[in-house]
């Protein structure tokens, strides 16, 4: 998998004012039977977007509203991504064109999965989050610029806000570096640790027969 690279981008907002949006809503489990990552854009929020016969709901779910077409920042409620570890969630969000999610908090595993796929989970203080949610609903022409190198976000009023991101993830994403490659640079230390900690788990060889 090529590591994602993120720099500066400017895009519109999509409001999703629901708390605790869980991974079963982001990608329902029946779409997890794939063995690759392709084609998940239609699985995204599937049961909120489509009728049982596969046609789009009328009125459409917010991400399908024509007025939000092409907007790449989701403004979501608290604890976004709660639930399972399925990386299909950020795969589907990415396939649909979501580049960043603004929320007051994220579920741990989702946050980690999102970063690995170049989608920025940005935690905002409640007042700024509320303002942006309002703007997302009311001002369709509004755009936000996210500058990962500076870890700042420029809001439609021209103000610039710093957002928290750990330095490591920031560097990996800016340089398009791969976490697996990073771990492999330390293979000497891994070997030394293994030798020092032989452990008692062996999946290949049972110790006793039952």
């Amino acid at each position: 998998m090529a590591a994602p690279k993120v720099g500066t981008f400017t895009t519109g907002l999509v409001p999703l004012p629901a708390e605790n949006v869980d991974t079963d809503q982001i990608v329902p489990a029946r779409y997890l039977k794939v063995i690759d990552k392709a084609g998940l854009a239609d699985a995204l929020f599937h049961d909120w977007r489509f009728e049982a016969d596969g046609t789009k709901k009328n009125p459409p779910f917010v991400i399908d509203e024509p007025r939000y077409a092409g907007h790449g920042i989701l403004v979501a409620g608290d604890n976004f991504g709660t639930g399972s570890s399925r990386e299909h969630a950020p795969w589907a969000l990415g396939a649909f064109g979501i580049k960043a999610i603004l929320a007051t908090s994220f579920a741990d595993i989702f946050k980690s999965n999102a970063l690995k796929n170049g989608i920025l989970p940005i935690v905002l203080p409640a007042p700024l989050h509320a303002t942006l949610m309002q703007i997302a609903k009311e001002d369709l022409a509004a755009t936000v610029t996210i500058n990962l190198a500076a870890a700042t976000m420029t809001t439609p009023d021209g103000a610039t806000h710093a957002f928290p991101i750990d330095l490591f993830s920031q560097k990996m994403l800016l340089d398009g570096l791969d976490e697996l490659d990073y771990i492999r640079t330390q293979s000497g230390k891994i070997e030394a640790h293994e030798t020092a900690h032989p452990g008692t788990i062996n999946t290949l060889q049972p110790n006793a027969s039952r």
Partner: protein
Amino acid sequence: MPKTIIEKIWNEHVVDQQEGAPAILAIDLHLVHEVTSPQAFTGLRSRGLKVRRPDRTVATADHSIPTTPRNLPIADEMAAAQVKQLEANCAEFGVPLHGWESPNQGIVHVIGPELGLTQPGATIVCGDSHTATHGAFGALAFGIGTSEVEMVLATQCLLQRKPKTYLVRVDGTLRPGVSAKDIILALIARIGVGGGTGHVFEYAGSAIRALSMEERMTICNMSIEGGARAGLVAPDETTFAYLKGRPHAPQGADWDAAVARWRTLTSDEGATYDKEIVIDANTLEPMVTYGTNPGMGLPISGTIPDPANESDPAAARALTRALEYMDLRAGDSIIGRPVNTVFIGSCTNGRISDLRLAANVLKGQTVAKGVRVMVVPGSADVKRQAEREGLDKIFRDAGADWREAGCSMCIAMNGDQLAPGEYAISTSNRNFEGRQGKGGRTFLASPLTAAATALTGVIADPRTLPGMSR
């Protein structure tokens, strides 16, 4: 400085810690299943890498396989292809596989402990958020994404930041009819589904010490529903007794040495936690969820909450939406809500002790007319044991459906599912919208509450069953 068991396990597994970077953490056991692994093996292949430690890796098929008799082919083409892909990947990379026809097959979190692979002090990961189950043995066990599955396959390591610690102390004695499931549902109802975010729970206190290993697994299993990626119980004699003699547990002198080491895995006197909560087991009732996340739960004698009483507008909105989806009315009592389906199974409550509890309620009885009752053992081994004890016959005679092992209606990937609008009482762990089938509605509860409900067809208080009075 006094340390918690969480810090002790963490420190022992740090391979490298660079300034500003996450730690490289060594992983002792990697569990693999068909749904979250195919893209990781593809990644390995495209990088030309091998599985570094096949001897620390084990796979099974559980999520997408049917629970109909194993001599039938898998009818769903995509599920069949996924299971075949797992078999091909394991063969190519030398990973031991307890495939869907193997006598050791089962839900990944049921078979790890069963085989004695889940051991105290270990770091355990799986591309599955309920990996926390293994914490019952005093292991640091957590779910990871597929990119991380690839990293662990390739390096047997992960990049991790040190988690914060959260002490959950449960003191006192559970009343008859109240079980481990009710403890964890009560915790989540109190702290909410995001309450443990960024933390690892340590469950302690006299009520936890009194639990069997299977009951501890039920509690640790649902740590993620409280937002914590992991949750654990320090090992004790109960843990060692469970593990002794299991196929992959150490034997002889190795066993004695291991137990001596495991005994040091307790939190030191005076160790501090980032957060703490105390729960009084004496006051707990059976719990049932009424909403669309596991935090929306209440004591079974309670009434469905009213959004009008919520001071926080976001919470009021969420509650309104949940009650709409569930088609429930604020102020109504939860007892007496009709159900179409009763599901007994999953990695939360699909082990032998859970089936015994349910069978005990259903013995000599008949399930309510028109109610579908599905009993799905957590593993092939649980199924064999239940059949040795005649539990399958009790379930069948009562009118319940006795199935092959798998995740089944916990996640509804395999065709076992609710129809739109149907209600289930379920011993699984998630009541999200559509979790048990598109449009399906889930009440989460214990095996006892589910079995009591099976008899009446409406949510019933297990404390009213014979032999359960206080």
